[in-house]
């Protein structure tokens, strides 16, 4: 891999250990995937913030970086943590756990990384059209590539952090136009109604596609909420990092495979994913974190209703979105729901928070919650979720 004079100096340690170890990570990954050089990025989005997921092991490395004056070279944002410190619901968690989470956040902050604690950094600042990014968080990666035309590989926590400190990423994979061509045509024949149905389609496609890029035709709804659920689910069940809507695809239309998706395949996918839950402890909306528009829709459903006393309703969003949607937050909270920031059901301690069963409109949450927290999970549309929370 070609390195500039300045990059070589970083590699040899002239700018300190933190930058050196970071560029070594990037060069090794570049070598592994056949990159020719490093390219500048507009921003990095870093996963590996939630203490629940990363545990004590990572704190050691973050400390070492922070102690050697690591500083972000480009704008960098963070994925959710395990706790919403502003919400009383989380104060029942053990003190040492809350301390550890705070320590991790402080370490990132010391490195000049923005403590956004959200999986939807694109609602805070939209990456420029055609920009190169180094983003972890698979749902944000597929969203950026597919809906924003911002180019990023599916990074992990360490490589995104290394990119943030160097301001560059190795030039391979989805940073190269020739690798952004679609190779599969997906024809959706099943009628999809809600965003939850789009999640089921995503789970199905993630499994059959591997890391191939599809052009998807036959989708009736194309609103952002549905497409976000589609992408998040594709990235959950598979290695997908990108899809095209039929009308947006201008590339060569020579596909190695055509896949028709009928009702039957989606039904099977839904049944594998979702359990039957009579009365959940938690109704979870906002995975990936909600947009202002979604908060508006949720508020409209909740207007004049009351969340049952024996059910919790969480609506997850970033602090930034919450701050800019006062009016809808008020409606949601007046009805007895909670607008939760900085965390989500996938990365917190559900059982310790009294949750054994949940219903969500997010296929990603319904997939991960049973695996990570051993809770029962069922998939329903947003409209149904609100009905379940409030009693029909």
């Amino acid at each position: 891999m070609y390195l500039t004079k300045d990059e070589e100096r970083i590699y040899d340690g002239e700018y300190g250990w933190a930058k050196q170890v970071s560029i070594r990570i990037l060069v090794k990954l570049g070598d592994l995937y056949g990159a020719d050089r490093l390219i500048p990025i507009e921003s990095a989005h870093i996963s590996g913030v939630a203490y629940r997921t990363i545990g004590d092991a990572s704190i050691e490395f973050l400390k070492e970086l922070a102690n050697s004056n690591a500083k972000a070279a480009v704008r960098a944002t963070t994925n959710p943590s395990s706790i919403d410190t502003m919400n009383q619901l989380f104060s029942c968690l053990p003190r040492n756990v809350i301390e550890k989470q705070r320590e991790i956040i402080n370490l990132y902050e010391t490195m000049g990384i923005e403590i956004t604690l959200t999986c939807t950094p694109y609602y805070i600042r939209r990456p420029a059209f055609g920009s190169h990014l180094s983003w972890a968080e698979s749902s944000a990666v597929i969203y950026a590539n597919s809906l924003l035309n911002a180019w990023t590989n599916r990074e992990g926590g360490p490589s995104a952090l290394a990119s943030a400190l160097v301001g560059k990423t190795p030039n391979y994979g989805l940073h190269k136009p020739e690798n952004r061509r679609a190779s599969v045509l997906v024809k959706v024949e099943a009628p999809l109604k809600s965003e939850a149905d789009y999640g089921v389609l995503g789970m199905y496609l993630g499994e059959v596609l591997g890391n191939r890029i599809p052009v998807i035709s036959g989708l009736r709804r194309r609103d952002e909420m549905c497409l976000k659920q589609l992408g998040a689910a594709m990235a959950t069940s598979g290695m997908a990092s990108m899809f095209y809507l039929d009308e947006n695809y201008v590339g060569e239309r020579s596909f190695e495979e055509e896949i028709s998706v009928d009702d039957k395949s989606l039904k099977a996918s839904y049944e594998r994913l979702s359990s039957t839950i009579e009365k959940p402890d938690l109704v979870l909306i906002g995975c990936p974190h909600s947009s202002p528009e979604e908060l508006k829709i949720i508020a409209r459903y909740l207007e004049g209703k009351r969340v049952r006393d024996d059910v919790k309703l969480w609506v997850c969003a970033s602090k930034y979105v919450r701050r800019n949607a006062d009016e809808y937050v008020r409606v949601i909270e007046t009805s007895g729901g909670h607008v939760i920031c900085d965390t989500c059901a996938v990365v917190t301690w559900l059982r310790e928070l009294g949750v054994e069963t949940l219903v969500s409109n997010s296929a990603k949450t319904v997939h991960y919650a049973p695996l990570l927290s051993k809770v029962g999970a069922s998939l329903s549309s947003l409209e149904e979720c609100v009905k379940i929370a409030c009693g029909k």
Partner: protein
Amino acid sequence: MEILLKGRPIVPGEARGLALVSSKPLSFLGGVDAKTGVIIERGHDLYGVGVKDKILCFPHGRGSTVGSYVLYALAKNGVAPRAIVNSLADPVVVVGAVIANIPMVDYIDISMIKTGDLIEVDGGKGLVRICRK
């Protein structure tokens, strides 16, 4: 008897030790205890075995990218393997070996190596030498 295997250099450094070989991919996050270096993934063929000071040979890593940090913690806690030998390196283990400074080689036919073999690894040249009596 000596067998010399030529692979791809990943992380430079030389190491000598006893091989610990698994035919299964390994997830460091949730799979290896960062304090003790013991493999804690149920159902894994090395379940309950410590990786400390071993030449750890397995096909490739899997699972969360946080696994890289676990390799770093193993090194910090003095319970890391002396070297890593993979069939095909994956990003999680590569990044972990880079930050933990553990010599690493891939493109090696793991089935040639048996647990307990005395092994020499040259991470800079991509060489694995099996020394059997």
